[in-house]
């Protein structure tokens, strides 16, 4: 794997980081410092625990603690919760969001940013988050631009954007990854079903795929 000193992760919901938790743990093991900007607290999620222990009012504070626990399990050093409202990222004032992202990038000077692939990430918050990152990075002079690697989720996305150019085998970091996903207690059951108990299903979690975003 490449080695990075500082990585910025920008995702909208607590638990999104689980998709790349093995990659993040691997980079941290190589000495990377990771800043994770999580845009919302996922407070509009439908899952309230199995059996339900949360409700619409208690969910944000529960998911906030789950997010902190997940970051500790991965080893993420710097967590920034921006407090946007779940489901509304695409409706936010773009200019303000972009400025805040630009200020964060200028402050941290990450070599790598990880986010969702705009247009291929199913949830409108995912697409809007990725789009904001791409818009912002595009404003940075090409010679100082960080690399942007994206998570894509939509069916058939490979036909549109090609196969992922990065596949990380994160088998060695499965303890961290599983602990991070489990930390989201209110969502865990619906995130993984019985996959953690079935070796064949668990094996799917050992591969993490990313697309490097090509800025023209």
């Amino acid at each position, binding site marked *: 794997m490449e080695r990075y000193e500082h990585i910025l992760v920008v995702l909208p919901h607590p638990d999104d980081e689980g998709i790349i938790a093995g990659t993040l743990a691997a980079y941290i093991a190589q000495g990377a410092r990771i800043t994770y900007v999580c845009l*919302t*607290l996922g*407070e*509009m999620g*439908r*899952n*309230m*625990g*199995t*059996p*339900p222990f949360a*409700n*619409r*009012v208690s969910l*944000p*504070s529960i998911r*906030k603690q789950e997010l*902190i626990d997940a*970051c*500790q399990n991965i*080893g*993420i*050093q*710097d*967590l*920034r*919760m*921006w*407090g*946007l*409202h779940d*489901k509304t990222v695409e409706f936010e004032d773009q200019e303000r969001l972009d400025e805040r992202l630009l200020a964060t990038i200028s402050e941290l000077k990450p070599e790598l940013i990880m986010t969702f692939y705009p247009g291929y990430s*199913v*949830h*409108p918050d995912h697409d809007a988050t990725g789009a904001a990152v791409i818009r912002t990075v595009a404003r940075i002079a090409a010679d100082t631009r960080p690399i942007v690697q994206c998570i894509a*989720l*939509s*069916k058939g996305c490979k036909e549109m954007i090609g196969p992922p150019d990065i596949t990380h085998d994160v088998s060695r970091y499965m303890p961290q990854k599983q602990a991070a996903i489990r930390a989201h207690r209110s969502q865990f059951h*619906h995130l993984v079903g019985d996959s953690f108990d079935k070796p064949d299903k668990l094996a799917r979690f050992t591969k993490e795929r990313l697309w490097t975003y090509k800025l023209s």
Partner: protein
Amino acid sequence: MKSIHTEDVQRRLDAYKGQPIYLHLEMTTGAYASHQDSTKLTASTFISNAIIRYSHGLITGHGPYRVGLKTGQGWVYSEGLTHWDDSDNERLIMAGHDQEGKLVVGLQLSSKPFGTVNECEDITEVTGNKEIKK
């Protein structure tokens, strides 16, 4: 959340009658409905902290339940309610959960606004001692 107890909910609905009340109302199929099954439509709607005043409010049905609130110029209506938070005396939180426990519909009333997310903060060094930047 507990299974709805209609007499208790009805008492709470009566107590809010005639006052300005904050309403949170939502319904959702989940953001991944059509991703998981292309024959399904992803649909979702919510309104948070709308202020309403109702002259008459009832909970009906044998479970799942329905609630109708008659306002000055119209109605608030919700069907499929199964659970409520019996421990919350400040707010009336009701929701309809499907067989997997997922929220499908929500109806909440409160005399104070429902919280927005301004409890957020930056946490550095989450792996060690938490240092919270204001």
